């Protein structure tokens, strides 16, 4: 008992710490992580299943902005990342694989309007 601590002490002196120095290095994120959404409007058929299954009601179907209205006449999902719980049900239910969750986890922002993901860039100015 008296000497029991000594080997551990020497071992700890020469062993690496459990943590990593975060901004310089990070633990790799595995595939299949549930992070920020990737949305492909060209695959989307505007069925609205993602908005219906969403348990937190973070997805709302909105119309395209004026410039794109001719090309995209349907309603498309607008994702509120502030409400999202990253459950990936929208990814699972999507019949055309137009929504998928990526590995991006760095979502904190100073601008609260950044948490809204519009289906196309022009929507924001409307």
């Amino acid at each position, binding site marked *: 008992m008296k000497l029991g601590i000594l080997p551990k002490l020497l071992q700890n002196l020469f062993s690496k710490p459990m943590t990593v120095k975060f901004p310089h290095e990070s633990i790799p994120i595995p595939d*299949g*992580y*549930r992070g920020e959404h990737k949305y492909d409007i060209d695959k989307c058929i505007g069925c609205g299943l993602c908005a219906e*299954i969403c348990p937190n009601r973070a997805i709302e179907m909105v119309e395209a902005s004026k410039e794109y209205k001719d090309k995209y006449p349907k309603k498309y999902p607008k994702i509120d990342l502030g409400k999202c*719980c990253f*459950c*990936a*049900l929208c990814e*699972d*239910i999507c019949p055309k694989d137009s929504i998928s969750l990526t590995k991006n986890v760095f979502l904190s922002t100073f601008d609260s309007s950044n948490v809204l993901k519009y289906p196309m860039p022009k929507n924001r100015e409307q």
Partner: protein
Amino acid sequence: MTRKMRGKRFTMIDQMEPALKGTEYDLYFGPAHPGSGNFGVKLKIDGEIVVSARADPGYLHRGFEKLMEYRTPIQNAILSDRLCILEPLNWNLVHAEAVDELMGIDIPERAKYIRVIMAELSRIQSHIIWYGVFSIGTGFDTGFKMSFGYRDYILDLFELITGGRVYPAGYICPGGVRRDLPNGARDKILKVLDKMEEMIKLEELENPALGARAKGVGVLKVKDAIRLGATGPVLRGSGMDTDVRKDEPYEIYDRLDFEVPVGKEGDVYARYWIGIEEIKQSIKIVKQALKELPEGEVIASNFKKPKIKFKMPEGEVYVRNEIARGEAAIYMVSDGSGTPYRIKVRGPDFLHMIPVLEYLLKGVQIADVPAIYWSLNICPADMDR
């Protein structure tokens, strides 16, 4: 004469109740205490002795039972993560089993094994947190940091398998599990289990300070434990051999070989040892399940794609499971529509944190309060629901 009167008055005051003589005061343990969780205990103190304790719950009430009535079981599987922050996978399993039993779904064999593996890994990390918070409660900071460091190895596994570090988002869902184990998961699990054995060795180191803080403190006799409704490690620490995994086996537990650790004294130290022994048994279970893991599907065929129109047959079901904290149960009534008509969640900590805690804190020293509080393996999230 004055001296005599004074002397008489002092003896009278000494015989008076603490509340009348003015030496009694209130001490708030939580809800802003570092590490008490979102939960408070109002203590009435006379000197160093706790005269009475009153639990002060409700800071984390989110209304799960009502929220679940407005969601389909697939959405509820995701909601059931949030029932307990420290062991979401175990609560996933309780909810999924309730829906499975109500709908009469046949679960694929591989899914059952994966469910048990994940539930046991979740139990290990929950018990490691228990050790950590118990250490910090008794002033042993190294234990706290050590345990949270080792817990992260299991969180890495969860990240790999479920896609989220803490919340698996209904990984164990009605019908099976949402994804198969990825390539190389088996080797990684075995590697992490080796790390956990390392952790157990560190936990088992005889610590005289901990013995002084824990031995003979907060004794809960088995008769009182049953009367107050204790389950799980608390009841086993008091000396009753009970475990839902043995008494009423679910999933594949009847095929697995493991023991139920039972304490004797019922004090804080006995409960602390139950935690360590249970990690050992869980490691044994995961190793067995990984060895026998069959090939095949992981989810029943009609659950592969989540559905919006969900039909549940009429009926009611009560499912109980052994989670890290004790006995968890869900009572679900369905009226034939897509959403449950009523859900009652029976969390193990409601009884541990209110009647058992109030009973144990009566008459102890202030310094023993954190040791007793943390020895009950509590989680305010699961109590308030």
